[in-house]
């Protein structure tokens, strides 16, 4: 246990400290830093249009990704929660994308989200065309305003099954007596769900929200696989990579610190409330 504590202290908190430290220096080339510049790298970052653009992209990606996975995951769990013959087949297939890497699924999504339309359309646009749904054709992630919503599709495909699994565990954790009692009291099926079952699921919903949300903030491999590193689909994690290729260490570390803070704001309250709940048990 003690060695683990030391390792985590060094490699998690020590390295975070190192990153924060570098983000306060003027190490903008491959050469060692001359000195500290305070928060200058951060003020520059927030005046950098390209960084603001990457935050906007991240915002669109995150909203669509969260809404998509929560809605689909919940719906699938609702359809499956009663249990029936063959339920396992659906469950397994809905969940299988979780086992695949974004790099591998990115290969096929890059092809599916091909932006060409009309005669030389490929991927989904081609499918719409053959199904006489031509009006659905669109440039996908190549759209400068809403392209990131399309980028969320592979992520939704990959993680809706996970959210489903969480909700299913929630549904199955509800004592049967509760349902029976509500039925004895003459509640309709709709009332039973609305007033008895759904309220019981809010802790699960919160967990799912935190997990999916924090995954979205870190999203990197999916974008690298589908579009590669380019301005159009840039999110902070990709911008960090591009910045580092140019040896601008201080700026790259500043981006990393911003990412860390955003994730911490979401995750820390959740972890603290979890710890308190455990204490009370």
């Amino acid at each position: 246990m003690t060695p683990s504590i030391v390792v985590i202290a060094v490699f998690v908190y020590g390295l975070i400290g190192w990153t924060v430290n570098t983000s306060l220096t003027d190490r903008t080339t491959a050469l060692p830093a001359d000195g500290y510049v305070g928060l200058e790298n951060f003020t520059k970052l927030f005046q950098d249009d390209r960084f603001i653009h990457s935050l906007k992209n991240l915002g669109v990606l995150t909203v669509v990704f969260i809404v998509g996975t929560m809605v689909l995951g919940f719906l699938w769990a609702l359809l499956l929660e009663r249990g029936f013959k063959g339920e396992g087949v659906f469950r397994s297939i809905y969940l299988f994308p979780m086992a695949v890497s974004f790099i591998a699924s990115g290969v096929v999504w890059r092809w599916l989200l091909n932006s060409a339309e009309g005669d030389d359309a490929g991927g989904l646009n081609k499918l719409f065309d053959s199904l006489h749904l031509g009006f659905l054709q669109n440039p996908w992630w190549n759209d400068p305003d809403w392209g990131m919503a399309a980028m969320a599709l592979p992520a939704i495909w990959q993680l809706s099954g996970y959210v489903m699994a969480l909700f299913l565990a929630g549904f199955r954790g509800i004592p049967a007596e509760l349902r029976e009692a509500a039925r004895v009291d003459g509640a309709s099926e709709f009332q039973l769900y609305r007033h008895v079952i759904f309220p019981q699921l809010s802790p699960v919903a919160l967990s799912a929200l935190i997990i999916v949300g924090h995954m979205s903030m870190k999203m990197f491999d999916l974008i690298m696989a589908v579009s590669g590193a380019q301005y159009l689909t840039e999110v902070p994690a990709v911008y960090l990579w591009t910045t580092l290729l140019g040896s601008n260490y201080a700026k790259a570390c500043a981006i990393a610190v911003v990412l860390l803070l955003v994730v911490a704001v979401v995750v820390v309250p959740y972890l603290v409330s979890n710890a308190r709940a455990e204490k009370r048990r």
Partner: protein
Amino acid sequence: MSSAAVAAGSARPRKKKPGPRSTTARTARFVLLVLFLLLVLLPAYVLFVTSFKPSAETSADRAWLLPQNWTTEGWRTAWDSLSPSLWRTFQLAVPAALISAFIGSVNGFVLSRWRFPGADVLFTLFLFGMFIPYQAVVIPLRQLTVWIGLPNGIPTLILVHIIYGIPICTLIFRNYYASVPHELVEAAQVDGAGMIRTYASIILPLSGPGFVVTIIWQFTSAWNDYLFAIFLSNTRNGPITIALNALAGGQLTNYSASMAGAMIASIPTLVVYVVLGRYFVGGLMAGSVKS
């Protein structure tokens, strides 16, 4: 179970909950489920058929059709370019999974049995390590490995996956050992067994399922990782995600080869998922922190 019997409030004890009340509702549910199933399988269909097409057939107009001339050309090309990295990825994921699982088991045992002051705070600090964006540590990590003189590529990545796997493995085992009856451990202590004896003779033999869950989880994370790999290795010494992205990410993409490559890169984790699906889900559940 007929819906009429359900409506009449059948008194027969039953294991299964009643399904939707009417046949209409049940049919609607089934249609919806099948529709979603097809949507989820759509990318898999594309991967499969494209990987068996000769390059002449991978054009847009035949995109959704089955191959006219089935060929393994794409698979051969993919195999030639990916097999070295495939082997390297096994060398990375297997030891990383085994070692972090063992460390997690020891930690989980200590945390579940020994209430020292500040244990909760410590545990929360551990858990935060599970959620951090690794971007916040990977830049100095690269410099650190150069300083220590660790060879770039697989050895470095093994170490990295072990270290950053400790939090989740500790959590899984802590939750798992919380369900081991206290009496067992107390009895061993009354018999004069110390911490280590107790762990080795009582706890370890009971730990099978905990190990399966953590090993699957860690194996999958290490196998599918791209972030650490791109920062700490290259196409010559890196894992399959790096090699696959190099194969598929070019301007002149050979579609049948990159789709075959994506399948080659996914087969090991999918096999694990199919064979040990129940435990795979166990790891997912642990990821949501609550036991």
